[in-house]
Structure formats: C-alpha cells, structure tokens
C-alpha cells in the first residue's frame, strides 16, 4: 500500500521506527501514523494479554499555569480542576455555549498553579484557540507544547513490571488517574496512570527529542514480557470494548454530555460560571432527546458507523461506532437511540446493507479487565 502524501503531514519522532517495524501508515488528523504493525487482532490481543506500546505523540499537550490557572480551567471546561489534588487527574470536556462538545480531555494537576490538558489530535488546535480566549481575564497563561511533547503509552496487564524496570520511583504508589514527574530510563518524564484501553497502563510525556530513546528503552524492557507495538486500529477496538467514546463518532459539537451518558462529568454544582452552563443546566432539567447505548449484534453481520437502528419497525437512531470485538467474539457497537429504547436487554435491529439484524442493548463497558 502506498503511504499517503507525506509532504503536508506532521510526523512524530518515531515515524522511522514505525517504518522499520513494517507499519501501515495512514493520515490521521494530519499526522502520519501507524494504523497497524503485525495486525489489528494480534495487537489487540497483545494488549489484553500482555502489553502494547503506543506512539501517541500526535495528541495535544496544553499547559496552563498561573495563580488562577485552576479557576480559569473551571470556567473553560465542564469539570472543576481546582478540586484536583496535585498529582491527580480527571476526565473532562470543553463545551460550546450551546452545550455541545468541543473535545473530550484529560486534565492533570501538576502543581498548585500548573495543569496539563491533553486534547485529541484532531481538536488540539481548536482547544488551544478556545483556551486562549477563555483564559482571558484570569491570571493564567496557556503554553501549547503539543509539538514539543511526545507521548508514548504502555497498556496491558504486564505494563507495571515493564515500566518499573526503567524508573526508581515506586509505581505501586501511582494510582489510576494519578500523575508524577520522574525519570524513565534516565529521561525526564511525566508518568500518568491513564489510558484508552480499559487495561492498566501508563502514558509517558517526554520532550519531543527524547521519544526515540524512551521507545527503545521500553521495547527492551518489555521484550521478555512480550510487549508489542500497537497502532491506531487496535487502539480503536480496545477503547470500543472498554466503552470509551471517540470524539468524532460519539461526541461532537452537536452532542451533549448527557446524551452521551457522561452527565456525571459535568459539575453543575461547582462555583462560578463556565462556558455552556446555561445550556447544560437546561438539558439536565428538560431531559435528553437521545441516549448513547451499547449494542451486541445477535445475528450475522457487523454494525458500523452510520448504520440505521430500528425498534419495532420505527427508526430509533444510528450507530456511531462498531466493529467485531476480538474479546467477545461478537460484533459490538455504540449507537444513539431514543431514550425509551435504551434499556439494557432491549432487542433492536441494526440495518446492515438493507437487512435488519437483531442487536441487544447492553450496559457499557463490553469488556472489563479481570480483577
């Protein structure tokens, strides 16, 4: 397969490694990224059974600093970052004034006056621009270091022993959604216990120029444990199994957090105004017009993005994401449907090439890692 035109695409520091590993490279959000190496199913299983290594350097890293950094972010986002202890993080969203979603994010508190906001690659520019606007009037500044910061993730049950080999800090002390600053293989890094797979794992932020050394060190440290390079294809099947939304599929400026089942992320009880507050309060009061559900197809066929969903011959909604689940051995999907049709156990029909195939509404996530 020929690579997409590379002239206009951003490249991460690891692109030559991906080529050397035989990756299929694609244009993703304007970046030349590996969609797969050995194969999506094999990579998916590697993460569920052992560990996978991901290049996520295309994502946006936005540092917000200053005496009012927390307050500024509380006004800019739907969550309450000042409530985070130093070294803790939470999942968040940036809303539009009408309650739609600009991006879903993770906010990490690095210090009393220092936060890191991580944005999706496709929205990093929009989030950065919006933060500049929304921080105006607060004693806080934005330092967009997206092109100076590389991100490498290790995800899977074997992640902790692999990462521990490369750092002196005791990682058993780093809880899920925690972050600390340390050295990994001698490289200064922010190490966060976060991820997009439903497995244990670490996301490591380093200077752009250190990405190669970090990737190599992790590859070596993970060799005995069967650490495998994993691309964006398996990243998508893993997150879908874990019930995690993908911006552009489940979330966009026309969907609101309540419809997406993420109402608990919106902190309406925090002090102070925030962008989207009025609209989101109204939605919380009036109720939602559609809801995001999980579906397991019970007939033959794979439900995919855009396929219609029917309830007793009535059009009820549309599939937002779908694939064959390697862990379940069945086709899974997320879809927006009429709220009344979304109770787990309900049998709906997904239209696959003009055939209506039964699918059962299930509670998310589809997959939970073993305790």
């Amino acid at each position: 397969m020929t690579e997409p035109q590379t002239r206009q695409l951003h490249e991460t520091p690891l692109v030559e490694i991906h080529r050397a590993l035989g990756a299929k490279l694609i244009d993703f959000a304007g970046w030349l990224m590996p969609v797969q190496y050995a194969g999506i199913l094999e990579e998916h299983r590697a993460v569920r059974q052992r560990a996978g290594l991901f290049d996520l350097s295309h994502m946006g890293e936005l540092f917000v600093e200053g005496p009012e950094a927390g307050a500024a972010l509380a006004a800019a986002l739907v969550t309450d970052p000042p409530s985070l202890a130093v070294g803790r993080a939470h999942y968040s969203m940036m809303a539009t004034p009408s309650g739609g979603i600009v991006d879903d994010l993770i906010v990490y508190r690095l210090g009393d006056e220092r936060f890191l906001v991580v944005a999706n690659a496709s929205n990093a520019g929009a989030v950065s621009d919006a933060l500049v606007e929304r921080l105006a009037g607060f004693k806080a500044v934005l330092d967009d270091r997206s092109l100076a910061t590389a991100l490498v993730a290790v995800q899977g049950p074997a992640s902790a022993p692999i990462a521990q080999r490369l750092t002196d800090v005791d990682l058993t002390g780093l809880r899920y959604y925690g972050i600390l600053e340390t050295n990994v293989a001698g490289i200064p890094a922010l190490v966060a216990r976060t991820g997009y797979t439903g497995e244990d794992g670490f996301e490591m932020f380093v200077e752009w120029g250190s990405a190669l050394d970090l990737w190599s060190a992790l590859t070596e440290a993970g060799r005995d444990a069967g650490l495998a390079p994993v691309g964006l294809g398996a990243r998508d099947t893993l997150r879908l199994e874990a019930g995690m939304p993908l911006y552009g599929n489940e979330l966009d400026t026309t969907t609101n957090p309540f419809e997406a089942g993420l109402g608990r992320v919106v902190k309406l009880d925090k002090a102070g105004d925030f962008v989207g507050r009025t609209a989101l309060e109204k939605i919380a009061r009036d109720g939602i017009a559609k809801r995001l559900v999980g579906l397991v197809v019970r007939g033959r066929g794979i439900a995919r993005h855009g396929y219609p969903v029917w309830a007793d011959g009535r059009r009820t909604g549309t599939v937002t994401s779908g694939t064959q689940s390697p862990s379940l051995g069945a086709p899974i999907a997320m879809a927006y449907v009429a709220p009344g049709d979304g109770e787990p156990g309900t049998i709906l029909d997904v239209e696959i090439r003009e055939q209506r195939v039964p699918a059962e509404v299930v509670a998310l996530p589809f997959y939970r890692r073993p305790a």
Partner: protein
Amino acid sequence: MVPTDLRYTKDHEWVRVDGDEATIGITKYAADQLGDIVFVELPDAGRVLEARAPFGVVESVKAVSDLFAPLGGEVVEANAALAGQPELVNSEPYGAGWMIKVRVADAGDIDDLLDAAAYDALISEG
C-alpha cells in the same frame, strides 16, 4: 509471483478453472491490503452472478469491501468455513480461504481475465 495456474481480475479476485466450474477467491495482495478479515458475506448456492457485478462483501476490522464477480454463472457452493473462520482468507487466500464455486455461463469470460504475469505487473505498479 502469484500462482501461475490461476487467472485474476483488476479487483484482486482470483479464478481457478476446472472444466466448467470456477473457484473464486481474493488474492494475498487484497487480503494484505484489507488487514485482518473478520466477516465474509457470500451468495447462496443457486444465485446467478453477472460478470463484474458485486456478489458479496469482505470486511476487515476497519472496512467493508465489495467482492466483484470475475465471470457470470450460477453459484454452486459458498465456502461455509468462512462463517466461523474468516481469517482463512488471510492465512490461505488461494486454498482454504476460497469463497465461491460457480458454474461458468460463458467460457469467453475467462479469456477476459488477467494471467499471473499481468496481475503481478498490476500490483507492482500500485
């Protein structure tokens, strides 16, 4: 070099001719391009195919692709193994991953197919 005893289409199907019966599948090149195949939809026996018209679907993890009939004729058999083991198309594209057997309606359709050398040339340009 692709198997020399087969004929090919520019849509990456292969054809093995045995008397008036043709076995049809997709090439290794196509399977590699698609990636891991997770679903194959094939016509039932008895269905009459038209040359160059779509006859089924092959799905990888990420995408859905049409299958195009290399020639016209009646479907004699569809490979039942692919329902439970779609990955055979990746592992044995010319063998156990075969898709359909067709009784050829017009032998002239076979002459229109590419030989191995022509198909190799096609895929090395890509």
